[in-house]
């Protein structure tokens, strides 16, 4: 995947056409006007990739937009990133505000913050809510959605219902082992389902067991 010599390096303000390289790195404000295939993608600052990215490791810090999709075995995000296409890989860690217009498929998905994703398919999903997230479809083996304990001002903001409250809204959530907090969903289907505090679920279909916290509302549930 690109010989070791070839690099895209943008330091300060700059632009590049993209291509097959070993390292693609933006420090500052950079624009890549095409597809990138690389071993390592690293963006610190503000990046704008107009094509698709394929990398072995990708680390995006700051504010970026990837107009196409992204595939990276290991993906790390800190900040605000939006993807115009599907995001696939093996391991994903995100902290911040992430938007994916398309599907997100990975083995391990660990996210903290506000997520806006069309569909999420991962073996292990751990989502820590900060602000309001929306994911249409969530599917996987183990799904854990929890809330970050707020501090100071953030805690005060969360006490008021509204756009600042930590919550997740979804249409369908399906998994073998599901734990949810502060989630609004139409349908939850799973093997072992535990509904923590602050949830409103239209219908729960479970196989083995169902536990519901007293502050949560479930309109109907069926065991099958």
């Amino acid at each position, binding site marked *: 995947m690109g010989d070791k010599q070839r690099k895209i390096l943008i330091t300060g303000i700059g632009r590049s056409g993209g291509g097959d390289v070993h390292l693609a790195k933006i420090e500052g404000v950079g624009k890549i006007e095409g597809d990138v295939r690389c071993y390592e993608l690293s963006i610190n600052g503000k990046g704008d990739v107009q094509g698709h990215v394929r990398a072995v490791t990708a680390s995006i810090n700051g504010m970026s937009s990837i107009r196409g999709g992204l595939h990276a075995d290991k993906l790390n995000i800190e900040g605000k990133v939006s993807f115009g296409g599907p995001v696939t890989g093996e391991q994903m860690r995100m902290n911040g505000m992430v938007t994916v217009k398309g599907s997100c498929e990975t083995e391990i998905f660990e996210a903290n913050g506000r997520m806006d994703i069309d569909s999420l398919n*991962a073996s292990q999903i751990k989502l820590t809510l900060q602000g309001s997230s929306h994911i249409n479809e969530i*599917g*996987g*083996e183990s799904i854990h959605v929890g809330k970050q304990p707020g501090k100071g001002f953030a805690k005060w903001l969360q006490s008021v219902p509204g756009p600042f409250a930590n919550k997740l809204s979804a249409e369908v959530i399906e*998994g073998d082992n599901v734990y949810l907090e502060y989630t609004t969903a139409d349908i939850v289907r799973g*093997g072992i389902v535990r509904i923590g505090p602050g949830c409103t679920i*239209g*219908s729960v279909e479970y196989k083995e067991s169902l536990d519901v916290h007293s502050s949560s509302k479930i309109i109907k549930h069926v065991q099958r």
Partner: protein
Amino acid sequence: MEEELISKKDLLELTGISYGQLYRWKRKNLLPEEWFIRKSAFTGQETFFPKQKILDRIDKIVNMKDDLSLDELADMFSPASKAISISMKELIERNIVSLSASKAAESYIGQSEMYTFEQTLCVYILDYCLQTGEISLDEGKTMLPTFLEHYKKFKEQQCELILLRKMGVSVFLLVPSGGEIHFESGVKIILRVDVPAMIEQLKLKLMAI
């Protein structure tokens, strides 16, 4: 032609697999995206699958997942060509294609020592068509150049090979699968060959040593 559908819930119950497995196989591209049909049912949003196709596929995955890795399985199910080359002698010895099919193919593909996957596929399909007894060897010889010339254009899209006959004149068509086709009266569809299914069979035979 309406296909019978099965809901995800019924599928899991029938096959005994879990949500985790189903989602993993989807991620690994063992189950094509087109098979996931989203519909709203009275119970809310529900995903449906073409029943026969998904049951066959799951059966194969469950039976073979101990011998092959998921990536190997995905490779087998994908319509993409495999990067291989194999000699015609080996194909005949291993009973993958018959002698008569290979003889017919020789003049079109050339007497090269090694066959690519695409060429092998072509001979394999010819052999299959001949085995059904529906086509003559001469018709088979018109099929070969059609397939060789046009198959590439489909890239990785799924396609179907159709043989029509009207008043003794036969015509071969290569069409994208899933589409509906209508003919004038008097046209008989003699044979429909699902190319992805052929690819899958051939890959399986090539892998078995």
